[in-house]
């Protein structure tokens, strides 16, 4: 069992445990904190897969911006004390069973897929900013500019909705 296998196992265990914590904890603030843990574990996976730029972007954008935004909204609403009333318990079981059924079907379908393994060779510098920037500004200029328009419209939309 190599070192990469050990790191993979530990990071996966943390990610799945934190994801379960998101959906099972009663307090929404605990859910957000579990989500941050899960995202940090996924960022660790990125760096194991030679995606250094995505690792940094994931940490900054997801754990730094998006989850803090969630935390902000949650604390602004002051939902800490209130627990959602659970009248219909069977809905919960139905959700869990259908999610588990999907898990079972997907695992059974993809268990025997013949794909090449991740050997660890290959070019390790492909995820650095230099390579990705060159590709982004040569082949993907149009999507890049379109995403700036998307951000502008999202910003305007958020302000308009929030001001009402």
């Amino acid at each position, binding site marked *: 069992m*190599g070192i*990469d296998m050990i790191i993979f196992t530990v990071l996966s265990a943390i*990610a*799945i445990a934190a*994801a379960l914590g*998101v*959906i099972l904890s009663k307090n*929404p603030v605990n*859910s*957000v904190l579990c*989500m941050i843990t*899960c*995202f940090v574990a996924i960022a660790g*996976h*990125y760096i194991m*897969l*030679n*995606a250094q730029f*995505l690792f940094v*972007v*994931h940490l900054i954008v*997801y754990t730094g911006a*998006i989850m803090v*935004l*969630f935390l902000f909204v949650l604390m*602004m*609403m002051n939902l800490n004390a209130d627990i*959602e009333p659970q009248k219909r318990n069977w809905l*919960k079981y139905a959700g*869990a069973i*259908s999610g588990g059924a*999907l*898990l079972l079907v*997907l695992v059974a379908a*993809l*268990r025997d*897929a013949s*794909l*090449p*393994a*991740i*050997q660890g060779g*290959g*070019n390790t510098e*492909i*995820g650095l900013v230099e*390579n*990705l920037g060159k*590709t*982004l500004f040569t*082949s*993907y200029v149009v999507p890049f500019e379109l*995403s700036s328009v*998307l951000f502008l*419209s*999202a910003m305007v*939309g*958020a302000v308009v*909705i*929030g001001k009402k």
Partner: protein
Amino acid sequence: MPVQYYIFLSIALFCIGIMGVLMRRNAIIIFMCIELMLNAVNLLLVAFSKMWVDAGRIDAASAQLFVFFVMVVAAAEVSVGLAIIVMMYRNTHSVDINILSRLKN
């Protein structure tokens, strides 16, 4: 390491997200579970890009840029979605999605 491990991890995270969407009724938690599903797919994309790079078939830059664009769209989506949730909270003083099932009033 077989790429199946990454596939199973992504499936597990995705299904946990689906369970959260179906089980919880707090709109913010549901939104976070959608983010979790997006991240599961991103992780799988990066794993596949690494797999094909090691096999010497592609350059991984395009695959990683696709993940980058998914993150961009997710960030834009979160800002608008949270604004909608805040507006809903202002009108109904609750983030329970069952309130939204009746659109009148």
